[in-house]
């Protein structure tokens, strides 16, 4: 609450004159700001007037059609792969906590495998999937095929990239989600049971909202990691994403630096938008604990 002469809080008709306080000064902060400003100005000047950065080329290609398409594809890969990862992770967490020992083991093995092998290797594998398994079919085991399609109709480069990114990520998310649910006190479930809520409803209404509060910040991290991970889909090979698009241009015009700046600009822009989204999600799921709305503003 701001201080001032006329500021008065009311409590049952009684007027309380609030203290008029001269805030403590922090001269050290101003010195630090001044020093930093000098350094920043130096660096900025060094970059902006530096002819090696080819800022004209940067501006020329910043909104080039292939770059924009690359931004679109990168975003799409990130979002869809993340959705695949979230769905898989939720299933993995439910399996991990289930009473069925087979489901528990499968979940454990999944996490073990996808966390334990490099993403690049997994992407290479998904790229080769159609070669390894030319037909996807449902058939009698060791008997005739009932129904089937050529694999490359289904597992296109885009699908392979999404599977590679999404399945690998699901293993990491599963561990994050599990930790989120673990942090909740057992008493929450018991209190919900005591008012007759069903298992599913307890999970959805009581546990999930509380778990999300701790799950969202690391998941935001993972999403940003995924965004940059899309640069690896070259391994599939998937050749439409932002990194490939800017690389292709720089190979053509022999000017890698401005194209790197273009790529960096767009990755930063997308990350910034994601961080804003994360802020609002955190605020929503932190209500009652981190963000307590006050009625007396």
């Amino acid at each position: 609450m701001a201080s001032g002469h006329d500021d008065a809080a009311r409590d049952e008709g009684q007027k309380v004159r609030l203290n008029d306080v001269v805030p403590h000064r922090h001269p050290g902060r101003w010195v630090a700001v001044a020093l930093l400003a000098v350094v920043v100005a130096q660096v900025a000047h060094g970059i902006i007037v530096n002819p090696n950065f080819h800022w004209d080329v940067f501006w020329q290609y910043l909104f080039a059609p292939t770059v924009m398409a690359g931004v679109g594809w990168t975003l799409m890969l990130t979002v869809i792969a993340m959705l695949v990862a979230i769905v898989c992770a939720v299933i993995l967490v439910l399996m991990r906590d289930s009473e069925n020992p087979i489901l528990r083991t499968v979940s454990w093995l999944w996490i073990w495998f996808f966390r334990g092998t490099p993403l690049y290797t997994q992407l290479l594998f998904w790229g080769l999937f159609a070669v390894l398994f030319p037909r996807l079919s449902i058939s009698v085991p060791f008997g005739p095929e009932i129904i089937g399609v050529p694999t490359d109709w289904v597992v296109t480069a885009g699908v392979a990239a999404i599977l590679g990114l999404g399945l690998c990520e699901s293993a990491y998310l599963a561990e994050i989600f599990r930790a989120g649910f673990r942090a909740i006190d057992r008493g929450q479930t018991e209190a919900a049971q005591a008012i007759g809520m069903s298992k599913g409803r307890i999970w959805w209404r009581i546990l999930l909202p509380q778990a999300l509060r701790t799950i969202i910040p690391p998941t935001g991290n993972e999403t940003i990691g995924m965004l940059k991970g899309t640069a690896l889909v070259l391994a599939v090979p998937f050749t439409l994403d932002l990194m490939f698009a800017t690389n292709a241009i720089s190979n053509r015009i022999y000017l890698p630096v401005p194209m790197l700046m273009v790529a960096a600009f767009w990755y930063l822009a997308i990350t910034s938008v994601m961080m804003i989204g994360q802020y609002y999600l955190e605020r929503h799921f932190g209500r009652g604990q981190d963000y307590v709305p006050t009625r007396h503003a």
Partner: protein
Amino acid sequence: MSRHATPDRAAAVLLEGVHKFFGNYHALRGIDLTIAKGEVCVVIGPSGSGKSTLLRCINQIEQISAGRVRIGGTLQGYDERNGRLHELSPRAIDRQRRLTGMVFQRFNLFPHMTALGNVIEGPVQVKRIPKAEARRIGRDQLARVGLTDLEDRYPNQLSGGQQQRVAIARALAMEPEVMLFDEPTSALDPELVGEVLDVIKDLAASGMTMILVTHEIGFAREVGDRMVFMDHGTIVEEGQPKQMLAAPKSTRTQAFLSKVL
């Protein structure tokens, strides 16, 4: 197995030969207890004697290992056909849990919901009462525990005593047949104990059937119609609170009371 040759099926709560094992640990060793409608039964006993376990078995947070629990004459958790027990479906068990309201030592309010949100969660999500009507019910229940103005507060904006009163309102909003209290005041600062006890006293006066585990012996004497002393998973002694406190029969009861009084 049971000492009750002709069980009183109309009793609000009836326990017959209830045992509970945690692995090899024998936490309840044959509990027989009958509580009439409107009766207030206070349970005392040393730490680890099985008081919480008893309440948790009554509202099926824990599954009993042997014996029968009946509420309002209905067997809890099972269906008895041709002399065999058949486990009920989770849905049926959830429905039975509505018969009992439970108040916990550590409140266990839902931290992401306001006071009113906590109270209407059961009516809306379980009983499927329309939101507007549930709010009205919720406000009535909050008023009943003396928290009219605090419905928009989140649990961490409430004092311990206020939180426990919200928890009581949350249980009452489901209109249970029996209220179970597990040391409702032992996590509270001394000056906040009174406000919660007052609410419980009002409830007792309104004719609610209650089982109350407490260390507040004075309060137990005041509100209890019956007192049960537990030790090592058994009921050692039960009787009229004033008589029992004045002249305990068992030496174990005497020893316990000499420590807490």
